[in-house]
């Protein structure tokens, strides 16, 4: 193996992670959670239209490949006059995708909070929305951290698909260097290593968040 190439390519790849993979993941995850929260609340709504739309959204997102979603937005939308740059396309596709998966996680977490908590919220005079925000969601958050962390870690790796719509992120840098040097094994393993390290950091962060949210639960 050519270790000189390993070291000389490490800088550009890390830059790809810092300027591409990481901000793309963060932005998509935050937006995705917002979408997920809205969809989850729609799904548990007693309004048939709202819950129907929520269900359809989740079904479409989970029932179609992420790569196809990405291509529809970047290569498909221009056909109807919507021409988006690679970055906005990627952020839209990834956040819509995360929204669908995380909506189910949040919905299940909300439903896992005992009914007595809703009743206690109403008893002290809170409306449905107040109870949801102040009583139910904080408790649902604790339950949903492990599955949401999974979603986030998957997302970090999925952002490599953005290389196919010309976003300069970690994997696209690896592809470019490999095409030039023909050292595929080395460079793709190097890319894999960097993804792995990012995910290790995320797993550690997950443990910390869980501990923090566990402070009011019996051990």
């Amino acid at each position, binding site marked *: 193996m050519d270790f000189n190439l390993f070291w000389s390519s490490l800088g550009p790849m890390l830059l790809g992670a810092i300027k591409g993979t990481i901000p793309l993941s963060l932005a998509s995850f935050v937006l995705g959670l917002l979408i997920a929260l809205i969809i989850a609340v729609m799904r548990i709504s007693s309004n048939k239209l709202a819950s129907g739309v929520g269900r359809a959204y989740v079904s479409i997102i989970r029932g179609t490949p992420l790569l196809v979603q990405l291509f529809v937005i970047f290569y498909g939308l221009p056909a109807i006059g919507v021409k988006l740059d690679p970055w906005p396309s990627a952020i839209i596709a990834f956040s819509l995708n995360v929204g669908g998966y995380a909506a189910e996680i949040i919905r299940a977490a909300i439903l896992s909070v005992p009914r*007595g908590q809703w009743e206690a919220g109403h008893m002290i005079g809170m409306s449905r929305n107040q109870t949801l925000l102040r009583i139910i969601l904080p408790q649902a958050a604790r339950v949903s951290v492990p599955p949401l962390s999974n979603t986030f870690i998957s997302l970090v790796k999925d952002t490599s698909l953005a290389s196919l719509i010309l976003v300069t992120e970690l994997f696209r840098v690896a592809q470019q260097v490999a095409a030039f040097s023909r050292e595929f094994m080395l460079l793709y393993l190097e890319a894999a290593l960097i993804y792995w390290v990012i995910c290790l950091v995320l797993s550690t962060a997950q443990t910390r968040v869980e501990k923090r949210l566990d402070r009011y639960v019996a051990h």
Partner: protein
Amino acid sequence: MLPTDTEAVLQVRGLTKAFGSNTVLRGIDLVVPRGKVVALIGPSGSGKTTILRSLNGLEMPDAGKVTVGARDASTEQALTVDFGDAAASKKARAAEVAALRDRSAMVFQHYNLFPHKTVLQNVIEGPVQVQKRPRSEVVAEAEKLLARVGLADKRDAYPFELSGGQQQRVGIVRALALKPQLLLFDEPTSALDPELVDDVLAVIKELADEGWTMVIVTHELAFARQTADEVVFMDGGVVVERGPASQVLRNPKEERTQAFVRRLLHEI
């Protein structure tokens, strides 16, 4: 704060409620004068808890009228919700029930404290977030109430750190902090270990002596005898017998009441 007049704080007329084909309330009447304590007793499934939950808007009765008196007759009026009035829209009904709920506070069988909030946060949540009262004033009151039930040092503890009896006393303080007209207790000691029951009952007895208006669903007949002004025995969704505690519990007239009282006393 002590009431002086005897006007009714709660009036219930013809309350009915069915869950599907199962009718749990078949026309309940109930009057609770200011400062009085009414104990609802009866076998499980007799509808006692459903009455209480209807008063706090946790169940929607099918028909009947509920009136809760004003805190201060000079600024407020008694509030009546007519559940049989089908004309009311869903939204209007919800607003009526919310107004009704504001006048009462409930203590739950399983406490239902907010596990992610400390004892103090549990108590002040309603007064600060819903009633929008100044936080410093509410905290001072909450601390006084917690001290009264012997939990001053648990102010910053989370519910999981407390025993069942302590949690239920926090539940009572949370209800008191709302300054309700009417306190509703739903089997407040049924989920407690036997040795913790007395502490909680002592607190409730003290509130009764202090003049709070209360409706208590309970299986503790000895407690009902000591605390309640009136005992209402229910079975199958109707009131079978009612009267002064000593009479209903010592010399019940109705056969069903006799059988129920005998059975509970034998258990003990």
